[in-house]
Each structure stands twice: as C-alpha cells, then as structure tokens.
C-alpha cells in the first residue's frame, strides 16, 4: 500500500463564465456501451420512468397546441375590430372567454404533468445515484490492496463524489429534457404545417443556418477554451507552488522572480480568457439574430399570406410563438448531447471501478480458529516457506524466503526508509496474495482461513495511527465491537492512556475530529495500542515511532508496547537499537528485499549490510 496520501484532485476545471458555450466536453471511450450499462442499471425505475415519459409527452403536446387555440381569440379580436370599424357589430367576448377558459385548463394540466414528471425523473436519478454510491462503497471492501497501490486515493474518492455527482446532475437534466425536446422538435413543425407550408419551409430553412453558425463558433472557441484551461492550470499551478513554498521563496529573496513569472502566466490567461469568452458569448447574439431572421420572415410572409386571406392574423401570432420556441429544443438537444457525454464519461469511470477484478474468493472449507466453547485454537506459530512476492509480477522483491517463528518470539524488521519493511506484514495478514510459496499460522496455510478469521489473529499498532471521526470510546472499541465499557477502560489502562483520556474535557466521550488534529501524534499511538489490547490478538505487528513524539509520551508508548508484547508473537518494524538487539530474530531489508536474517550478534559477525547500517549512526567524523 502506498503511504502517499494523495489529496483530492483540485476539482474539475471551474465552470467558465457563460457556461456551455463551446467548452470541450470530456468524452467517454465507449459511449454507447456505457449508456447501455447505465440504462440497465436503472432497471428498477423503468415503470416510473415510462409514466414520466408519457406525462412529459402529454404535457408538451398540450403546450404546443396552446398558441394555435390562442390564435382563435386573436382572430376574433381582428374580425371584431373590423366589425367595430365598419360599425356592423362588436367583439364577441363570450367566445374569447370560452377560449381563455380552455387554455387555462390546458396550461394547468400541462404544468402539473410537467411537475409530476420532473419529480418522477428526479427521484429515479437520485435513487440511482444512491445505489451507485452504495455499490462503490461495497466494492471498495472487496478490492485487493494491490489495486490501491497503483492509484491515489483521490482517484477512488472522486468517483464516489465528483463522478456520481456529475452523473446525477446531468442525468436528471437529460432524461426529462430529451423527452420534452424531442417531442417539441417534431411537434412544432407539425403545428407550423397546419398553418402554412410556405412559412414552415422558410422557418425550417433558417434553423440549419443557426446550427451551422453555432457549430462554426463552437469549433473556433473550443481551441481557446482548451488553451484557457491550460493557462488557468498554469496560473493555479504557479500559485499553489509559490504559496506552498512561500518560506523558501522568501528565504531566497525570490519575490520579484515569482511575481514576474506570474505576470507572464496571467497575461497568457487574459489573452485566451477573453477570446474564449467572447467567442462563446457570440452564440447568444447569433442564435438571437437567426431567430430574429425567422421572425422577420414570418412577419413578411405571414403578412402577405394574411393580406391575401389564406391565413389569419392569429395564425401569424401562433406562428411567431412557434418559431421563437423552435430554436429552444434544438439547442437543448445539443446541450443534452453534451451533458450526456460528460455523464457517460463519469459513468464509465464508475462502471470501470465496479468491474475491477476483486479479491481472490474465500476458501469454501475454512479452518476454524476457535473451538465450540470459544477458546482460541491458535498459539501463534508463524512460518514462511519458499515465499516469493512482488508488487509487480516482473519485479519480485521477496525471493524464496523461508523461516520458522515460534509462538511468543519477537521478530525485528530493520532497514533504511523505503526498504519495504511493511511488506512482510501485509503478506502475513493476506492483504496481498503470494506469487508462490506458503505462509503458515500454526501449521495451517493462511489461505485455509477465512480472511476475517485470519486478520482477527493479528493486532496492529502503526506509526501512522489511524483514528476516525468519533469519540475515543468508539475508536477504542473498534478493536472489538462487542467490548463493554469496562473492558475498553481496562485496555486503555493497560496501554497507559487511561490517565490521559481522563484529563480530557469529556473523558472517553471526547470527539476526535476528522483530521484527528485535536490530539497529538503520540497520544494517537497510545490509543491504537489500547485498541490492539482490546482486540487481544495472538500475533502483534508494531511500528515504532521515529520522530515527532515528545519524550514523555515516547516513554509511555514504550511501556505500553512492552506490556502489549508479552506472550504474543511480535513483528516489530524497529527503529530503536535496543529493540532490535533484544529481538529473537532480525530481518534486514534493503530496497524491498530481505537481504540478511539472524540475531544481532550473528549479523554483526557477518559484517554485512546490517553492520553498516548499525555503525552508520555512530560514525566518527
């Protein structure tokens, strides 16, 4: 496992001003495949979604019919007006009221249906997002450790949050919008045709014009968007770097140099930023202009046709509404295609993760670790037999390692930083599978145990103590979930941490915050010792503190560990020479490989790497 904690990547590039306009969209590698999977995934919601689609359809159809009916009212006004002018009568307001009544009903029904549809679709997407998150979380549990070696945690994190977020947002929009826009795209021309084929023809001719212009601009602006994104990253990168290295920059009088460099990046950003913004901002005026072109066309052609008497003034009014609205579903469909693209890209990453190969399955005939009355059957003997292992198959780091360790013995693992001292530990707990060879606990191949059983035999106290956001009591009980309060307190006492806990404001109920920054490193380690006590394991894995612990706490930690080690088989990643010299066996590691094995005296006699390592600390100048 990599110790490098990668922070969450700096989000997606922020939504640029006037969003949408030609920003390059992240694309999925296999668009249709991913969409198919996504559709399959939404199966539990099919029924509701169908209802939603039907509702959407009805709602849109009603909305489309509206202007045509409204036209009748206008026509009545026109002819009524003429009657007034020629003094042959007046406007029939009863008729108009009737029409208004019908339309109110129509619009109400349409709006209600649209609302119901939105709710149905939103619920379906939210529930899908929920179950995606759930599945990812469960999947993490079943993944082998090796998966996380090659990937920063931020990557998996961003799938749970960013990707699912993107998906839920774009999916929710796309689903209802696609249905509505599709019906509108078909419905508007049909309604237009019922008024006049000549005008429809003209209106339909204008639309491709807008599409061509828009796609031309999108292409142009995309170039600048890519550049802008790059320069933005450069600016942000420089800021991040200079702020993180602020002290060094100051210490070496680097202010001017840094400001000058920033200016260069900032100017680059300015140049591309305004260009990309301008170009993407052109979309609105251009579509508006083309829309106006259609409007003028309708007025002209409609004027002639109406004067010639083949259509009415109301028809012109309805037609204007249709033409003005017709652009909308088209640009919306284009937008939906974009959002679908990013949704597919997000979904692809999620499914990719869900489809990753999982841990080797558990044995079907597990060996028990306790007898019927609950007494442990394990004494704690550990042996390695011709173990071969490598994090990569092509780079074997443990070559044919064999060793027998009696129950209750202490094994020290030593070596310079980064020598891979924790590898052995990870193999023991079966976090990784061996390439070949066998590890036995009490003579049983560890693969014969259930993973859970095997791991319950071990207790771990790592230097990078892991605590979670919760009370101290909860954190300690993590060692054994069914432990009583008394047992927890007894364990804390044995780990010399009871006194410290009681000095805290809320004692055992003190909250440890998310970064566990409200207690010191040394105290954290004491708590993990207590946790291991509570778990009462047969075999212990200890990681000695190197630094950043104050002296008095260090003494407590030492005492706690000594206490814990009694009567258990111990693997100690050792830094203190006294520990190393007292060990029953020393494994010397170098660059991931076990290079020497033996007791202190044996190894010193060998005068090899261990001797070098041991002496280097006290070399005379």
């Amino acid at each position, binding site marked *: 496992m990599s110790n490098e904690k990668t922070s969450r990547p700096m989000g997606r590039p*922020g939504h*640029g001003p*006037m969003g949408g306009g030609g920003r390059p969209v992240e694309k999925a590698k296999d668009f249709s495949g991913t969409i198919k999977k996504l559709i399959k995934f939404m199966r539990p919601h099919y029924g509701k979604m169908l209802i939603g689609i039907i509702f959407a359809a009805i709602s849109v159809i009603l*909305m489309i019919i509206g202007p045509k009916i*409204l036209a009748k*009212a*206008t026509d009545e006004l026109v002819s009524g007006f*003429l009657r007034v*002018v020629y003094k042959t009568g007046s*406007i029939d307001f009863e008729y*108009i009221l009737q029409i208004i009544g019908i*339309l109110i009903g129509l619009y109400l029904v349409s*709006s209600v249906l649209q609302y119901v549809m*939105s*709710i149905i679709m939103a*619920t379906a997407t939210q529930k899908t997002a929920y179950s995606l998150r*759930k599945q990812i*979380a469960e999947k993490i*549990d079943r993944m082998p450790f090796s998966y996380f070696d090659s990937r920063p945690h931020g990557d998996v*994190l961003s799938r*749970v949050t960013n990707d699912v*977020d993107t998906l839920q947002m774009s999916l929710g929009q796309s689903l209802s919008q696609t249905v509505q826009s599709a019906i509108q795209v078909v419905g508007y021309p049909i309604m237009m045709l019922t008024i006049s084929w000549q005008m429809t023809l003209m209106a339909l001719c204008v639309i491709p014009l807008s599409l061509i212009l828009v796609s031309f601009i999108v292409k142009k602006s995309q170039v600048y968007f890519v550049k802008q994104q790059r320069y933005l990253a450069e*600016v*942000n*990168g420089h*800021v991040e770097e200079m*702020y993180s*290295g602020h*002290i060094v920059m*100051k*210490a*070496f*009088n680097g202010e001017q140099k840094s*400001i000058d460099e920033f*200016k260069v990046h*900032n100017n680059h950003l*300015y140049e591309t930023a305004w260009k990309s*913004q301008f170009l993407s*901002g*052109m979309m*609105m*005026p*251009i579509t*508006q202009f083309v829309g*106006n072109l259609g409007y003028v066309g309708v007025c002209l052609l409609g004027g002639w046709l109406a*004067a010639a008497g083949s259509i009415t*003034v109301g028809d012109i009014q309805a037609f204007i509404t249709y033409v003005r609205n017709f652009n909308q579903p088209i640009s919306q469909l284009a937008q939906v295609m974009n959002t679908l693209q990013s949704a597919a890209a997000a979904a692809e990453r999620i499914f990719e993760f869900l489809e990753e190969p999982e841990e080797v399955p558990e044995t079907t005939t597990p060996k028990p670790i306790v007898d019927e009355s609950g007494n442990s059957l394990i004494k704690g003997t550990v042996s390695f037999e011709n173990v071969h292992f490598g994090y990569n198959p092509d780079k074997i780091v443990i070559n044919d390692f064999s060793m027998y360790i009696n129950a209750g013995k202490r094994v020290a693992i030593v070596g310079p*930083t980064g020598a891979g001292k924790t590898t052995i530990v990870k193999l023991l707990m079966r*976090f990784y599978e061996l390439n070949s060879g066998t590890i036995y606990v009490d003579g049983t191949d560890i693969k014969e145990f259930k993973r859970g059983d095997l*791991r*319950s035999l071990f207790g*771990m106290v*790592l230097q990078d103590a892991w605590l979670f956001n919760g009370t101290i009591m909860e954190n300690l009980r993590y060692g054994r*979930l069914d432990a009583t309060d008394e047992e927890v307190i007894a364990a804390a006492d044995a780990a010399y941490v009871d006194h410290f806990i009681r000095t805290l404001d809320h004692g055992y109920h003190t909250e440890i915050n998310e970064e566990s920054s409200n207690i010191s490193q040394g105290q954290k380690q004491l708590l993990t010792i207590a946790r291991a006590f509570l778990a009462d394991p047969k075999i212990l894995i200890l990681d000695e503190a190197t*630094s950043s*612990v*104050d002296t008095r706490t260090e003494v407590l930690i*030492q005492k706690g560990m000594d206490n814990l080690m009694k009567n258990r088989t111990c693997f100690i990643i050792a830094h203190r020479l006294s520990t190393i010299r007292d060990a029953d066996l020393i494994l010397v590691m170098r660059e991931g490989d076990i290079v020497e094995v033996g007791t202190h005296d044996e190894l010193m006699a060998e005068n090899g790497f261990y001797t070098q390592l041991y002496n*280097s*600390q006290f070399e005379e100048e």
Partner: protein
Amino acid sequence: MFQLVKKYIKPFLIPVIAIIALLFGQAQCELALPDYMSNIVDTGIQNGGIEDGVPLAIRESEFQHLTLFMSDADKAFFEDSYRLIKTGDAAKDQLQDYPVLKKENVYELKDISSKNRDKLNDLLVKPEMMVTAIAKSAADKDGDLYKMMNQYHITDPFQMISMMPADQLKAQEKMIDKQIKKIGASVTRASGAAFVKNELKAIGYDTDAMKDNYIMIAGAKMLLIALGSALCAILVGLLASRVSAGFSRDLRGDVFKKVENFSSEEFNRFSTSSLITRTTNDVQQVQMVMVMFLRIVVYAPIIGFGAVLHVISSGASMTWIIAMCVIILLGIIGILMMLAMPKFKISQKLIDKINGVTREFLDGMPVVRAFNNQKNEEEKFDDVNQRILKNQLFINRTMSCMMPAMTLVMNGASLLIIWVGGHQIESGSIQVGDMMAFMQYSMQIIMAFLMIAMVAVMLPRASVSGKRVLEVLSTDFCIHDPQEPKHFNDEQKGYIDFQHVSFRYPGAEEDVLHDINFTAKPGETTAFIGSTGSGKSTVINLVPRFFDVTEGAILVDGVDIRDVTQHELREKIGYVPQKGVLFTGDIASNLRYAKADATDEELRIASDIAQATEFIDSKPEGYATLIAQGGTNVSGGQKQRLSIARALVKQPEIFIFDDSFSALDFKTDAKLRGELNKLTKQTKATVLLVAQRISSIMHAERIVVLDKGMVAGIGTHEELMKSCEVYQEIAYSQLSKEELGNE
C-alpha cells in the same frame, strides 16, 4: 464585493460606458421589432398598406364632395396640398398609375411635410366619414336620402346634400362629431384608411402593389434592426469579455503580489490552502459574476425601461400585467430559493462528509480490514448516503416546481393580455397588432427579469468570494522594512545574537518563546533540540524575519535585523526547510534558485556535499531532470538533499537547517553532516540547526536545549549530559545507556 468592483472597474470605465450604451441600442432594436410586426398586422394587412386617411390621389368629383364638409380655411389648405391633373394633359406614367384619368380629372398629393400631412389627416377625418356615410345611406333603399333623391330625380347624393339647408347639414355634422368622439383613435385611423383604399380602387390604382410594398419595406427595416441588434450584442460581448478578463487579471495579479509579500504570520492567519483558493477560485468566481453582470443584469433594467416607454407610446395601458408577472415570478423564485437554500448548504456539507467517510475508509483500509470492521464502515457510509438521498430529493422536488410555475405564469400573462387587450381594442384605444406586440414585449421583459433572478442565485457565492479576496488585499503587512535601512557591520561577520528574545503569536495568550539568549559564532554549529512544541523551529524562523520578535532583539553581524531590509538580511542566509520544497523546472534550475549564475562546477560541489550526486547521476538526464510541480517525482529524501544543495550553492554566511535531515537514513545523515561540517569550518559559515535525533546534533559546538519555549540548557553534548535533565531525558529515550557510553 461592491468595494472590490468599484476599485478594479476604474481602468475599464470607458468600455463599461460603451457597453451600457450598446446594450441600450440592443434593447431599442429588440423592442422595435414587435413595433414593426404590429405595423405589418395593423397597417399592412388590415389597412392594405395604407397608413392614414390622406389619399395619394383623389378624383376631382370626390375632391369636391370632401370640400363640402370643410371650413374655408381647411378647404384652402386642402386644395393647396394637391395638384390637379387634367384628363387631356396626363403624362403616360400618370395614366398608368391612375387609369381613371382617361375619364376624369384627378388631384394628386404634393410632396408635403409630415407635419402638414398630420394636419391634413386630422381635417380629413370628418369629411371622409361624412362622405362615406352619405354614400352608404344613398345606397340604402329604405333610407331617407334615397327617397329624397328619387323624389327630386337627382342621381348624385352630393348634389342633393349641397341643396340641403345649412342647418340640416349642421345637424348631420354634429352627429358625426359625436360619433368621432365616441370611437377611439385607432378606429378613426382604420376607417380613414378604408376610405382611401376605396378611393384608390376607384381611381384604378394598384393597391395590391402598395400593400406588398409596405410589407416589404417594413420587412427590410426589421432586417436592418435585427442586424443592428446582433451587432450591438456582439460588440457588448467583445467589450464585456475583455473587461471581465482584464478585471480578473488585474485582481489576480494584485492578490498574488500581495501574498508574495506576506510574512509567515499572515500566512498562518489565512492558511496556505485558503490563500490558494482565494487567488484562484475566488477570483474566478468574481470574474464570472462580472461577465454575467455586464451582459445580463445591466440589460434587464434597460430593456425593461425601454419596453415601458414603448408600451406607453403604443397607448395600451397593460403595464400592470407585466409588473404583476414579474413580481409573481420573483416571488416564486424567492420562495423556492428560501426553501431550497438551506438544503443546498447542507448538500455541500454532506458531500464533504461522504468524502470524509470514504477517505477515512480508504486511508484506514489496513486497520479496517485488520479489525474486520468492513460492515461497520459500510453502515457509516450508508448513513451519510441516505442523508444525501433525502436532501437531494427535497431539493429536486422543490426545484421541479420552478419550470412549470414559470411557464404557467408566462402563459397566464398572454391570456390576461388577450382579455384586457380585447376590451381596449373594442374601445378603439389600440389595434390588434399593438396587442400582439405587447405580448412580445412582456415576454422579453419577463425573460430579462428571470435572467436577473438566475444571476442573483449566483450572487451570494460570488460575494463571499469577493469578501475573501478583499480580506487578502486589505491585510496590512506585519513586517515592514525600515524607513532608513542600515547596513551590516562587516567586522562582526557571522555572529547571531539573541538578546532576551520572546515571541508570541498575535492573539495568543502565552509566549511560544520566552527570554531566549545565546550567541552563534562563525564556523560553529549551534543546534536546537527539544520535544514537540518546545519552540525550536520558531527560534530559527525568527532569524530570516519570517516573524518579528515580540520582545528583545536579534542581532546579525552586530545589527538589529529590523534595521536592515529583509532583502539584505536574507541575502546572507541559506535556509533549508523541514520539508524539501522544490519548484517546477529541472534539478539545475532548482539548485540555481538563489544564485542564478552558479557554474556547473558549483552545482556539482554542492550536490556532492548534500549527498545528492549519486541519485542525480542515476537519472538519465542528470541535472536536466525535470522536476514536476511540487517535486512529486522525487522522493522525500531526495527533495531534502536537493534543498540542502540549493542552500549550499548560494554560499551564504549563515545556514539554517530546520529539521532538514529527518527524511534521510542514518547513514546518509551522518555522511552529509560530516561533509557539511568540513565546509562550514572552512568557509567560517554560521550554522543553526534543529533536529529531532540526538545523533544528528551530538557533535555541535553548542546545543541549545529548549523546553516549553525556554532555554533549559546550553552547552556541548557532554556538558549537557551532566547538567541538563531535559537533555538527558531526550537522550535516554532515543539511545540506550550503552550506546551513549560508546562515545
């Protein structure tokens, strides 16, 4: 936010004014379009392209009829405005235009001013109505006029009229006057046009061509206006993007410059990550709102105002409908936002939370699995997941209201306009086209206000960003250069003197350092040791003036460091931080950071001492090996060695090592210290060194033991082992007695 905008918009005042002017132009154009549509409907379609009651040409006979109902003054004006074309001397094209010329003389309208035309139109209203009415009643076989004409055997009703007694005529006129008063202006205009149309038909004039012409010209004007609107909008886009990008460039530049001059104290106050977001994301946020503001928010009141003007000039008094719709819509948005806003805020927190749970899960994976607690973690995750689901559902269900409600209001507005407008049409105050235009204005205005509402949603976030940026800009520096800087005393080179130095963080209740006294000498190593929180790092960070002392003074080369410029002080210092910090570039550029003109040989010597040569040489590109941002492509130990080498290249008088060997293994640590010692002895450099490991400092000439911010002892290792209890404690915790005895 407002303050920020005010300050940074200044250089762009002219373009901003231009933007507003252009937006005004755009609004005018957009609003003019429905006007023309209304003209096409009212004049083009309904009146056959005839704008008013002034006929282009008129038969002599009809001319005479009209004059019957005019006062003498009016008559003179009327005759003055027309010229007579006689049947005999009609030109060919005149004959073509007015075929009736073959039989009858025709009066043709002279080229008159629009003022005179309006006057003519007004005085013609009554006569035209009279003539129309008389013609109509003459055709009515049951009417009095018809009977009278039969009685006197007169075929021309007007001859009949001229024979009528004056008072009878007066009564007729009075009746017409009453009628005119009753009907609205639009009806009189329409009936005037109807008269003209009939007359022109009688002349044989091609009225269809006239109508087509009218529509054509209106269409061409609309096209020009549409083009004008697009042009304005594009220019606005150009200016707005330049202004907002320039605005954010200036702002970002100033923030960066400010932060670069911050001392560690200001850095601690804001925290590094917060400063990064303030310089990047927050500025970006402000910029985004700027664009929106310039293009949309400013536009809405302009178009709203323009529309009101148009509405007033069109005579339709339905502005209240628009106002009502805007208020209802803003109300709906307001209510929905009020309902959803708190949930939005929670939503961000929940996302952080699920991030936290997942991160905990991932980071603690070995522990989780070692203790078999996967189920427990999954339950925790599911708990947050459920809460996200509930929260999101609430937000979605609330926001789902928005669209249907808005369409409903907008459609309702159309219906209301039809109803109210219908009555106004009947009373003659507007025409159908006006009403249609009104519908379109109202949509434009409502849309503009909706846009404002959309932008308003973004505003709170942006104003928070603006505030955060402003906070940085308005921070006063804690550390200033002196007004009249002194210079270092070269005779005391390499001496660092702490005189009763105390330090506390601003706002803190207790001193971090209290009454520290010691002198570091050239060619010697002064080391600091103590447990975490003892203040050992703070001591050495005071020397380069990352912080200023609270009490006492630090003298370097005999001069108080507050009396020289920060630049001059830091020129003397080679600083190596705890965490190796490298900058983007290559290894060589990093090593040359403090001394740009260092030779390759100098780099090599420095990396030799820093024990970095071996790994640099192992890289295929050697010194040209690229360093990624934050130095992520080299290990912690390598970073430390390079940052030591960087300080060495500078060849400073004073070295400061802030726990700089922690990532090195014992062996490298020991070797490096040996080489370094040789060098500093040779160059008479002063070394200040903080360490955790006692083995790293055992050989220092002077060890300062710190405990809770106070000096617990000063001396060599041997002296301290005898006299200083704190030192002994540290020593015993790290080394066994035997090892210590080995010395």
